[in-house]
């Protein structure tokens, strides 16, 4: 017991020292002489952390471990879980609706994420220029991402893209007789993608910060050498903001995989029509809470975690090729 209490303190103090050594002005001794913090202080630290630790153990770690166990069982909420090994996973691959959910989600991630980021970057570049009323425009373009995730926005979306609603009528003016998007299995996914693209505020703000960091001299020098706007964009802007771009790609990809609320509401809780908006989490929810197959739903959840982990790993691996950090960084 004593040993366990002391050892984390020792590790912390060791870390402290190395940090001060690296960052201290002359690499001198740390200000408190490097004395490890007292046992009392450690205890107080843990005590203050205890609500968080308890929350983590009981609300996150515990349920996660339990759901990992459940993913190998058949569990209908009422009877005790029955161990069935890998059955849930084999059932999943044999299930056409599960395959459909993978297809819909992949499509949503592959189309939605790049378009959203392109929109965010384009608007960020416009807003980076100095002009009158700049802060108003920034706030106006950011606003949708504040309300975009809400239920009401999804309901409004449903109304906009319904039969004979504003989108349908506008289409007709231009001679496209597509009809409402909401009832059309081949169109509704694009209504969802439009909804996510519309919420580009958060990546836009991050892009804006990145763009501000690009040194003006680079553009001036390029202009002197006769480089046009496209050349400047591809050879200065993009490489210079590539770390920010990487961050946004990573975040938005992970985020897109977890889409649920908008798909559920725009489709009126059906994830349809014809399973056209049956995103992965929607099917997971249906299996768990409607069909009472909690084991199957847990297995789906874990597979999603692994898939997102893999995609993240691939993105990290790929950054060597296209993300440029300033000298001194990696």
């Amino acid at each position, binding site marked *: 017991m004593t040993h366990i209490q002391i050892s984390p303190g020792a590790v912390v103090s060791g870390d402290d020292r190395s940090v001060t050594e690296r960052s201290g002005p002359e690499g001198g001794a740390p200000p408190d002489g490097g004395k490890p913090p007292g046992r009392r202080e450690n205890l107080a630290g843990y005590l203050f952390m205890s609500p968080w630790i308890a929350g983590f153990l009981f609300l996150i770690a515990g349920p996660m471990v339990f759901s990992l166990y459940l993913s190998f069982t058949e569990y209908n909420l*009422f009877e005790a879980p029955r161990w069935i090994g890998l059955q849930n996973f084999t059932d999943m691959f044999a299930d056409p609706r599960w395959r459909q959910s993978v297809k819909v989600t992949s499509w949503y991630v592959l189309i939605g994420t790049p378009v959203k980021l392109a929109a965010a970057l384009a608007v960020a570049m416009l807003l980076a220029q100095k002009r009158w009323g700049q802060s108003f425009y920034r706030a106006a373009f950011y606003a949708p991402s504040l309300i975009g995730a809400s239920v009401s926005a999804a309901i409004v979306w449903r109304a906009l893209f319904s039969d004979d609603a504003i989108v349908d009528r506008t289409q007709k003016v231009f001679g496209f007789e597509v009809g*409402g998007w909401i009832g059309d299995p081949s169109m509704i996914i694009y209504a969802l993608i439009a909804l996510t693209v519309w919420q580009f505020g958060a990546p836009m703000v991050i892009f804006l910060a990145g763009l501000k960091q690009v040194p003006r001299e680079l553009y001036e020098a390029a202009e002197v050498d006769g480089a046009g706007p496209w050349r400047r964009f591809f050879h200065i802007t993009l490489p210079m903001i590539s770390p920010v771009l990487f961050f946004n790609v990573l975040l938005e990809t992970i985020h897109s995989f977890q889409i649920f609320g908008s798909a559920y509401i725009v489709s009126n809780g059906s994830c349809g*029509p014809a399973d056209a908006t049956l995103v992965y989490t929607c099917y997971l929810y249906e299996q768990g*809470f409607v*069909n*009472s197959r909690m084991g199957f739903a847990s297995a789906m959840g874990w597979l999603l975690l692994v898939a997102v982990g893999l995609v993240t790993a691939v993105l990290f691996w790929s950054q060597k090729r296209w993300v440029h950090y300033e000298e001194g960084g990696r």
Partner: protein
Amino acid sequence: MSRNNGMDRRQLLKLAGLSAAGLGLTAAGCGSGSGGSGGPVTIRHSWWGADDRAKKVQQCVGLFEKKHPKIKVKTDFQQYPDFWKKFNTQAAGGNPPDVIQNAVTFLRKYEAKNVLLDLSPQVEKGNLDLGGFRAGLEKFAEIDGKLLGVPVGSNSMALVIDEKVYEKAGITPEIGWTWDDWLAGMQKIRSGQKIAGDAGPHGVMYLYDLILRQNGKAFFTEDGMGFGEAELLPYWTEALERVKAGLYADPNKVEQIKPASATAKGLSAGEFTWDNFSVRYSAEGKSSYGLAPIPSTDGKKTGQYLGSLMLSGTARTKHPAEVATFISFMTHDPEVARIMGYDRGVPATTAQFEAFQPTDAPSKAIAAYETSIADAGVLEPITPHPAGADVIEAAFLRIGADLALGKTSPKDSVKQFFSEAKTALAAN
């Protein structure tokens, strides 16, 4: 400073201890009160429905609390699908509401999981009155000798029609009309008024059940499916043809106006649904709506039965006597009938049936419809619904709609339906 802190802490601990003890005492006080000593008891009641049902139920609860001052009722309601999601979670967590609104589709499912309260001991104790129920409703929710629910109202499948469209086409549906008559009517409406005859009935499980019953089968047996691919394939193949021919409403448009009804929104001249739902049509639509009888194959047997919403207790309740008292009140008190009207169907007991004399047109139509089918003698006993029936019903509706949208062939749709039904029966 540290010593000061220590003292403060100690004082704080003392204080905390005292208040905890205080809480304990209050809790103990509550406990003894809700026990046998006659203090107030609180039971929880939840149901599904829209806002206006909530207002009506709340009014009834107020009345109940006035007549039974020692019982308090806490209420809660959701829309139909959300209701069961929440109930599942509550029941699995061991904390379901004491009294719930229920339907036949869920009886076996929750009976198998020991969630529902057997009310028969309460009948013997005199807390629940089973007298005075209308014919066909006395033993509605009895399964394996257990009384798992008490009906609050009865309803039956009907064909809701847009009266103006039918009138213009010169069609008067009458008891004894056949499916061929119905089809001829739809064709006449289509060619004369360029409107679909039906919203598309191929996903409505309860209608298909009637069609199967007209042919000597049923949708469900006690523990499985009462029909096979051989029956469903021609039915769905024909449905797809009728969608293409414009006899059934454009599924693309039906999808977009949900949760509103296709007939009320002018997409079709009629649709099959429960008769008590017809109250919503005049609110949603612009035309006038009526109830037409169910067509049959031979002009006689419609396969109809009385369906019903019911009230059930849950097995974990600590207050079965109060639960029974509340259910008894809701099913027998004449004042409740005057408040609820036909919202949950035609009242199940004669006392309540006589207490409410409808004055509005939709309620009058429902009363006339139920009287007419009772007089025609077409009513039969209901067929059982196995555990998992709710999931199968949802799958039938979903796959039926997908089929109409032309995304899958009838053959694949039928296969998919039976595969999902099999999974649902195994999982529940």
